[in-house]
């Protein structure tokens, strides 16, 4: 991890686990900037792991239990107060190539505990280096962030809400082909609203203007 002042910090894992990720993510966890990464245990699969910079060192903060099966992976979505309880959760898609469980984790000391989950989603396909197939956004305007992400077969875009602690799909949209790129929200035309941008396997670049 390279800081703005040029300092480089590193955290080395013991030999029974590795980082199975392309880049760490900077998240806001209850008002504190932290680093989110995927740690994979050789005998138990992947887990979310969060670090902070303290006293010039990259220090572990909290970690979830790994999936429990070797070579099972998860792909983080990000951090927000997804259920509206005033506490930040970390969201991830657990086993995106199998059951695709969109899972919320809430920190309890040095542990992340599973709080809620809903199956049927995928933010990655085997062989791809694209990890950002999801967006955090308050779609229905209830003041609680929702998650936009592909369905398990990636031929549908869904909006999932965990507001109130109960996961439910607010809606979905059928795609013309499977999504293969990152999902991006950006103001492409300068009119102030965030457009939705993604690409499909058939080579089509899609922009949903809002």
């Amino acid at each position, binding site marked *: 991890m390279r800081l703005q002042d040029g300092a480089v910090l590193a955290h080395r894992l013991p030999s029974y686990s590795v980082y199975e990720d392309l880049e760490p993510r900077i998240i806001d966890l209850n008002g504190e900037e932290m680093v989110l990464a995927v740690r994979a245990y050789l005998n138990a699969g992947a887990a979310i792991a969060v670090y902070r910079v303290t006293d010039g060192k990259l220090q572990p903060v909290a970690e979830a239990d790994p999936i429990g099966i070797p070579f099972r992976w998860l792909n983080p979505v990000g951090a927000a107060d997804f259920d509206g309880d005033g506490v930040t959760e970390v969201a991830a898609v657990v086993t995106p190539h199998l059951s695709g469980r969109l899972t919320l984790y809430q920190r309890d000391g040095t542990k992340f505990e599973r709080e809620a989950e809903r199956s049927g989603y995928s933010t990655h396909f085997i062989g791809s280096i694209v990890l950002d197939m999801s967006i955090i956004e308050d779609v229905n305007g209830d003041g609680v962030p929702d998650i936009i992400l592909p369905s398990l077969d990636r031929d549908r875009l869904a909006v999932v809400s965990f507001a109130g602690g109960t996961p439910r799909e607010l809606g979905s949209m059928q795609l013309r082909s499977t999504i*293969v790129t990152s999902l991006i929200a950006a103001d*492409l035309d*300068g009119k102030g609203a965030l457009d939705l941008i993604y690409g499909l396997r058939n080579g089509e*670049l*899609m922009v949903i203007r809002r």
Partner: protein
Amino acid sequence: MVAQIKGLQDVRRNQETGEVVIVTDDRHVALKLQDGKFVLRDETAPDLGVPGAEPIPDGRIAA
């Protein structure tokens, strides 16, 4: 809006400029919308480390 992009691999955001960048199998270009059409611009296309990537000349494709 839909555009057919040859060799489309990914769309990313340049974290320094905030621009949206189309990544194909051999190049990357910045994307904007202007007058209801896609505008691909070369002058701001960042080096994303894609082997063999190079900007393409300014050009438009039908929306």
